[in-house]
């Protein structure tokens, strides 16, 4: 089995390419996706696809988020598998009716007669662009029955989970963190991690509804997603030097959620710390914390604690963004306090 080093952008592009080769019902739509000599989407993920698949299957749209998502819903209902892109994840709010009232509910309202097998890709995460280009929005979708929510942290997961999402017969909200893309040249993000990994060349799927244990440990369970996984792993390294052995779990799929694995981890370590980049109130961590409180209450030696962005819109200045996005230091301090009591 051959593989090569890929950034997340390359991994996502590879997934789209393989899916579109395999099944003519897969197509992509959004702004600036296939224009000749253009960007390849907000972050170059679709670059080059229109050369192979043409401009009907790599469909450029006007700035019409309602129509982009609505058309994806309609096409999905006729048996296509559209992958729609919002240029920035924050723009999904322009078309939220189509996501929440339409895509999420059609399967249910029609008593299973119509399904909506679409994927909606959202570039998310603070990246020095200000409040309307930076939000992590998992919680809105986690709260809506009928949607699946995926948020990978690395290229290998990104490719496998995008393919799994495309073949899933339900609407999937697929969050991609801007600082993890690893774009080259002009689209390279400042302070991005550029994680590059060996990724298999062939098509493979990582089943939705799974989490990944990135670092086994005994003393405290740290749950995180996307960029925060990397922060958590850095924190775990620092903590291990103090004799605190942290278990880091990548919550790469929020819906469906593998509560069992998280619960077993919590019961083993007796302490849970959730690290999330979305706002504290009603964030995804709140839901996971509530579930763990129900399931693992009698095994907990410390309160389930969240390190999240404060309840403010995302600020732009680097000095303020640093306060907003949970830092390695904050994770270390909080984890230490939980372990020490």
């Amino acid at each position: 089995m051959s593989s090569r080093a890929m950034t997340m952008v390359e991994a996502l592009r590879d997934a789209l390419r393989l899916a579109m080769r395999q099944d003519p019902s897969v197509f992509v739509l959004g702004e600036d996706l296939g224009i000749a000599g253009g960007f390849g989407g907000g972050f170059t993920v679709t670059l080059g696809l229109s050369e192979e698949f043409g401009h009907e299957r790599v469909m450029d749209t006007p700035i019409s988020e309602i129509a982009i998502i609505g058309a994806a819903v309609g096409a999905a209902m006729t048996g296509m598998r559209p992958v729609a892109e919002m240029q920035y994840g924050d723009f999904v709010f322009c078309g939220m009716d189509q996501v929440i009232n339409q895509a999420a509910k059609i399967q249910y309202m029609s008593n299973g007669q119509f399904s909506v097998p679409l994927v909606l890709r959202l570039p998310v995460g603070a990246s020095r662009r200000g409040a309307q280009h930076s939000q992590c929005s998992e919680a809105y979708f986690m709260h809506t029955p009928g949607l699946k929510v995926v948020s990978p942290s690395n290229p290998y997961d990104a490719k496998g989970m995008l393919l799994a999402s495309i073949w899933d017969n339900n609407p999937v909200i697929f969050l991609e963190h801007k600082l993890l893309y690893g774009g080259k040249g002009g689209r390279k993000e400042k302070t991005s991690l550029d994680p590059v990994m060996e990724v298999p060349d062939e098509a493979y799927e990582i089943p939705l509804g799974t989490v990944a244990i990135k670092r086994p440990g005994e003393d405290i369970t740290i749950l995180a997603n996307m960029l925060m996984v990397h922060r958590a792993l850095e924190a775990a390294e620092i903590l291990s030097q103090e004799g605190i052995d942290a278990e880091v779990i990548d919550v790469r799929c929020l819906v469906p959620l593998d509560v069992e694995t998280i619960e077993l981890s919590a019961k083993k370590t007796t302490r849970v710390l959730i690290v999330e980049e979305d706002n504290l109130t009603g964030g995804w961590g709140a839901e996971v914390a509530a579930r763990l409180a129900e399931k693992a209450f009698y095994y907990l030696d410390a309160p389930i604690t969240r390190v999240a962005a404060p309840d403010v819109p995302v600020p732009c200045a680097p000095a303020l963004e640093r306060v907003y996005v949970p830092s390695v230091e904050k994770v270390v301090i909080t984890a230490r306090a939980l372990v020490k009591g």
Partner: protein
Amino acid sequence: MIFEVVIPNLGATGSDVVIEDWLVKPGDYVQAGKPIYVVTTDKATVEVEAFRNGYVKELLVKPGIRVPLGTVVALITDSPDLQAEKIPVNNQIHSTSSLDVKQLEVPEKYIEEPFKKSGMRRILASPLARRMANEARIPLENIKGSGKQGQILQQDVQQAIVSQHLPESISPEDETRGRVRAVPVTGMRRTIAHRTQLSKSVIPHYYATISIDMSEAKAFLVECAAFAEKKGWAAPTITDLTIRAAALALGHTPQINASLQDDDILFYEDIHIGLVVGLPEGVLVPVIHHADRKNLYTLAMITSRLKENARRGALSSHDLIGSTFSISNLGMFGLDSFIAVINPPEAGILALGAVRQIPAVWNDQVVPRWLMTAVLSVDHRVVDGIVAARFMDEFKQLLEHPVVLTLTAPEETSE
């Protein structure tokens, strides 16, 4: 024209200030630069001057009122004509002369009542600590909490359990026993210390010993090894045989494949066997799941992988959880026999000694045979003597007739 007098940023850290006193009254002429009111911030009391010439038209805020920075507090006009029209001011602090504001109902404050339950003082403890203290029958009142809020934590309960038994404690400074080197107990060592302490203080252990003739088993393993080599498989070891035998024996006496939890005995339907693996820094107990459904060669593959991963620190969470019974084999170190500590929450652990050649009675003759001593430690709350004996007998029979170990494998599962 009418100008607003606005509270400027006075360099305070807080955003509210209090008007202490007005130095002018309506109708007075003010000059730019002269103070017209006094204000207290969270840092200091300051006089604020007028920024333009004019006549005071209206004072909008009474002294003693707390207002945010930027509030319009007075109006100044450039004409002394005080009948000029009032302009609407865009803030909430108005002179209240013409308004008759009804006092809105103020909800009652929540009055915190003293803790009433069970007439005792309120004790903070983590849910885990509470459960452990309950299981160990130690009243929470007797435990000192080390948490920041004074709450009792798991380690405090463990400490309490331990100090119930230790008559004296030793401090690193104590030199009555000569020089001392103190090493903090962390990581794996700490886990082992806690778990074994807990096990021995909570679980009533008792023991059953049996001697097993392994001569047939040794010969059998040679054949297995030859077969395995032909197939390119891992060769089964003594340990693999004992795992299989134990799994089948547990099927025979399922009462041991259990755990006491509060007031219930939980009988596990699946058999997952933990294998104690020694490492330089301590021990790990990786788990062979559904050990009764694996044939010898699969077991050989699994145990060699687990041991390898244990040594490399690459065991997954899944590999380390879920055991319902454990086996510890120290035979390779030459021990005749030893007694193992039960791994909570299990109810039993099997300790295996070396397979050694000693004189034994065989067909009424004294001949050299290969013997192994096995010691079973069981939880007397869950397992009675007869059950333990039956298990050991079954275990022995299986190992002394090893061919049987290859027969019963109704559902083979792959890893």
